[in-house]
């Protein structure tokens, strides 16, 4: 499999990268890691005119806590996230997801920003970020904007990112006490794209009720989405298994899976229920373990 010809630039800093993107809007495509993009280019299903490689652009791969926010640079690799103890201790869901993306080599090079901007409906980060109520920072030559992860994923391979923008940072709220999360991924084989993925992040109040809830689903619609009906059913309620099953069923009803090589739509809808219920139970256990 041989790509068709393209130009390639590796700008030295963000300003230069943004300038190039603006000058060659429409034909330029950002390369960050490349493990989502290059297979498609090799299959000639994508034929960009210019690749703008962010490898030399500094300051985009930090993982820092800044008050109530975790800031994750767009070029942070899956492996960096997996190995960042402050982040994964506070948000084990991040480790759940990072450890199941692709394989070790892909985790060494693939980046969270690349995966999020690519917006494959079966990629894992978009659902997790929606469950976490994360925000996405986008820079262009004209400035910077921060948008919620919810609403960012518009369609298959389509996001709210403008052609001349670069995804520079993911911002995740630091979880309150008595929070827990889990990402449950159903895959056909190690390293596969998700058949179904369910991301849950919840916070319990002092009385044991669910005060905050986020649920994101992978691979069961044109783009990953927040299972808001299930969230509504859970918010303010005392967690119990029956409630979880009802909420999981609501998540399933909100999904719109397609029949494909991963299975028929009916199976996937059932797996939304199953995986969401599992993620809810695991998230609850983690939240309760926090005291």
């Amino acid at each position, binding site marked *: *499999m*041989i*790509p*068709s*010809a*393209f*130009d*390639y630039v*590796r700008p030295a800093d963000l300003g230069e990268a943004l300038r190039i993107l603006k000058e060659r809007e429409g034909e330029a495509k950002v*390369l960050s890691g*490349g*493990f989502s993009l*290059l*297979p498609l280019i*090799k*299959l000639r299903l994508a034929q960009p005119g210019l*690749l703008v*490689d962010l*490898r030399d652009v500094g300051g985009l791969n930090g993982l820092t806590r800044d008050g109530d926010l975790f800031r994750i640079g767009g070029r942070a690799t899956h492996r960096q996230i997996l190995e960042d103890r402050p982040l994964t201790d506070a948000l084990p869901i991040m480790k759940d997801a990072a450890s199941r993306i*692709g*394989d*070790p*080599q*892909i985790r*060494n*090079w693939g980046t969270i920003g690349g995966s999020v901007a690519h917006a494959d409906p079966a990629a894992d980060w978009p659902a997790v970020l929606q469950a976490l109520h994360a925000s996405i920072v986008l820079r262009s030559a004209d400035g910077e904007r921060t948008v919620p992860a919810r609403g960012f994923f518009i369609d298959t391979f389509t996001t709210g990112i403008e052609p001349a923008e670069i995804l520079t940072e993911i911002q995740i709220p630091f979880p309150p006490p008595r929070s827990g999360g889990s990402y449950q991924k159903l895959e056909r084989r*190690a*390293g596969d794209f998700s058949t179904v993925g369910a991301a849950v992040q919840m916070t319990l109040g002092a009385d044991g009720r669910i005060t905050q809830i986020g649920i994101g689903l992978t691979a069961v619609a044109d783009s990953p989405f927040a299972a808001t009906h299930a969230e509504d059913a859970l918010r303010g309620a005392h967690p119990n298994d029956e409630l979880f099953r009802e909420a999981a069923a609501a998540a399933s009803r909100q999904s719109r899976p397609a029949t494909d090589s991963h299975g028929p739509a009916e199976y996937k809808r059932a797996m939304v229920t199953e995986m969401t219920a599992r993620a809810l139970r695991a998230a609850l256990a983690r939240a309760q373990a926090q005291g």
Partner: protein
Amino acid sequence: MTTQHVRVTVNGTVREADVEPRLLLVHLLRETFGLTGTHVGCDTSNCGACTIHVNGLSAKSCTMLAVQADGAEIRTIEGMADGATLHPLQQAFWDQHGLQCGFCTPGMIMQSAWLLGQNPDPTEDQIREGISGNLCRCTGYVNIVKAIDQAAGALRAADAAK
């Protein structure tokens, strides 16, 4: 056809070439530099036969452009033995019958080397997960796992002796 200049250090030797931006890193190694130990098996970054180290990280060289590696330190299977002395992983793959047709072997050894650098004393589960991006069609993985375990022991012993 526009070309760009690429300069990389491969197994300790600086090598340069003018390449098309679309040239895959694996083809730079195999066809431009003649290092044919790195193989192509699947084209979609599933099989890992093309695994090498780029700046110390294991990478699938069929899913990287040569221009992306400009300036990088690269290590391939050809750089693993020290003259007549095999790398402990090479020795262990031989001792444990960790290969049959040998086609996946270079990628498997390179990934294992990275894995043992990360985790010098892995459990069987960690070994299996660590090579989950490398497909072998011949061995059923049993002896590959044994070989990595043997090499881990040898490397730990060598480390302790230092």
